[in-house]
């Protein structure tokens, strides 16, 4: 895809004004980093507030009398129990229980508000149209900004009074700069924070207004990746895909209690069998003992040099101060705490299998 064919974010001019290094990402030209650089942007988000443009993500409105029942046919989570304002992380599954995409579903009162991955949006829309009878509208005139970090509540409460009362994974309608915004208390960094859906034509003004607070900096995709990796959050296409099930991905918690008994979602039999009998491979954390990062695709061996897994995402965690990774590991011989080796540039380097996440999340649960 040439640069001319890349779609532009509604706040593309603002990215350029703030010195972003733009890169192609899922068909969009998006900011990899700004002048602070990835490491400082990461640390700023963990200590103050970071503003992310995630307008490339798909925002979808599902509307219909039976919409919750219908959506439950495609995902393993309990959607029917969502009350107005509540939201849930869930997964589109194929017939074998493989993950087609991960998404967030919010009960917005008269409709369900769904956010899907940029790279999957066209596939997801088709999947929804093929399987649901309800109204499906892609909200192409909406921008999506995320404000993440411990100071986000203070910053956003000034502009949208009342957001401080939202709890983690809940939502509401607010007005910022006179524009109608749908705000959720959620994110992809392991920090407290918000995602703000707004009319595209108001996005630049709202972003500039948020940036006027001196505790707020623009944060690019580079830091977004290191933040979510430290938080143990999956990146679709890398840590989860059509070949991985929720159980293998260690996302069994997305499968609702009622759904485990009633079924009625794709791959139910396979997933229930995996929940009962266990899986042969599962997503774990990996900490290389030294300083060399082990990137995606790195092979993992046990101490007898038998291959036991592959790294799906790996890099350096600025807050952890060390290399970190996520990997799919053979559960028959390896568990949390196991010593393994990672093959980096033809050298077997010592590493340890860990639980996830690598940092304690800072969500506002109460």
């Amino acid at each position, binding site marked *: 895809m040439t640069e001319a064919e890349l779609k532009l974010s509604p706040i593309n001019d603002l990215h350029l004004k703030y010195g972003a290094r733009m890169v192609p990402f899922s068909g969009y030209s998006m900011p*990899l*980093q700004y002048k602070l*650089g*990835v*490491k*400082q942007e*990461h640390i700023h988000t963990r200590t103050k507030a970071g503003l992310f443009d995630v307008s490339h993500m798909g925002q979808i409105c599902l509307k219909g009398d039976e919409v919750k029942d219908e959506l439950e046919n495609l995902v393993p989570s309990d959607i029917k129990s969502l009350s107005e304002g509540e939201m849930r992380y869930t997964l589109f599954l194929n017939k074998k229980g493989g993950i087609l995409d991960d998404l967030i579903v919010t009960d917005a009162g008269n409709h369900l508000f769904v956010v899907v991955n940029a790279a999957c949006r066209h596939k997801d829309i088709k999947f929804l149209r093929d399987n649901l009878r309800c109204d499906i509208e892609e909200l192409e005139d909406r921008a999506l900004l995320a404000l993440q970090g411990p100071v986000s509540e203070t910053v956003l409460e000034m502009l949208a009074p009342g957001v401080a009362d939202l709890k983690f994974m809940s939502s509401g309608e607010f007005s910022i700069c006179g524009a109608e915004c749908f705000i959720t208390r959620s994110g992809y960094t392991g920090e407290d924070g918000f995602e703000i859906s707004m009319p595209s034509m108001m996005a630049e003004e709202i972003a500039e207004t948020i940036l006027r607070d001196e505790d707020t900096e623009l944060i690019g995709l*580079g*830091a977004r990746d*290191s933040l979510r990796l430290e938080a143990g959050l999956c990146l679709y296409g890398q840590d989860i895909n059509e070949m991985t099930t929720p159980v293998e991905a260690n996302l069994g918690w997305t499968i609702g209690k009622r759904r485990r008994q009633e079924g009625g979602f794709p791959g139910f039999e396979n997933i229930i069998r995996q929940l009962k009998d266990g899986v042969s491979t599962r997503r774990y954390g990996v900490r290389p003992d030294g*300083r*060399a*990062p082990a*990137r995606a695709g790195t092979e993992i061996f046990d101490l007898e040099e038998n291959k036991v897994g592959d790294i799906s995402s790996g*890099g*350096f965690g*600025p807050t952890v101060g060390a*290399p970190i990774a996520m990997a799919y590991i053979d559960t028959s011989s390896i568990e949390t705490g196991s010593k393994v080796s990672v093959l980096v*540039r033809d050298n077997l380097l010592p590493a340890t299998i860990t639980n996830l996440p690598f940092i304690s999340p800072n969500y506002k649960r109460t």
Partner: protein
Amino acid sequence: MATTYYSEEHEWITIEGNTGTVGITDFAQEQLGDIVFAEVTKANEEVTKDEEVAVVESVKAASDIFSPVSGIISEVNVLLEDAPETINSDPLENGWIFKITITNPNELDDLMDLESYNKFVESIK
């Protein structure tokens, strides 16, 4: 007097006698971003011009460092083991990566002086 040459791979090499000290340019460190790991993979080995001899990793990605000349890698900068970010903060002095005993000084003729390198950087920006 020491002379410094530059490669199209954005390495610099400063020559004193038959020893060259090699690092990456300010343009290179800025492009790579925050460096979190550096390792000379061919320490004490005989290497040929343009061979991969070291790796530097930023938060984003790993990048190979090529030897601008043939020779024997004689020393590595141990400071970078614990402080790889020195390559960002001081790429042309304390952020040097390795020293090499040059076996074919004629290869230096293929490299650029500072003025040519600066023009080269402008041409690819």
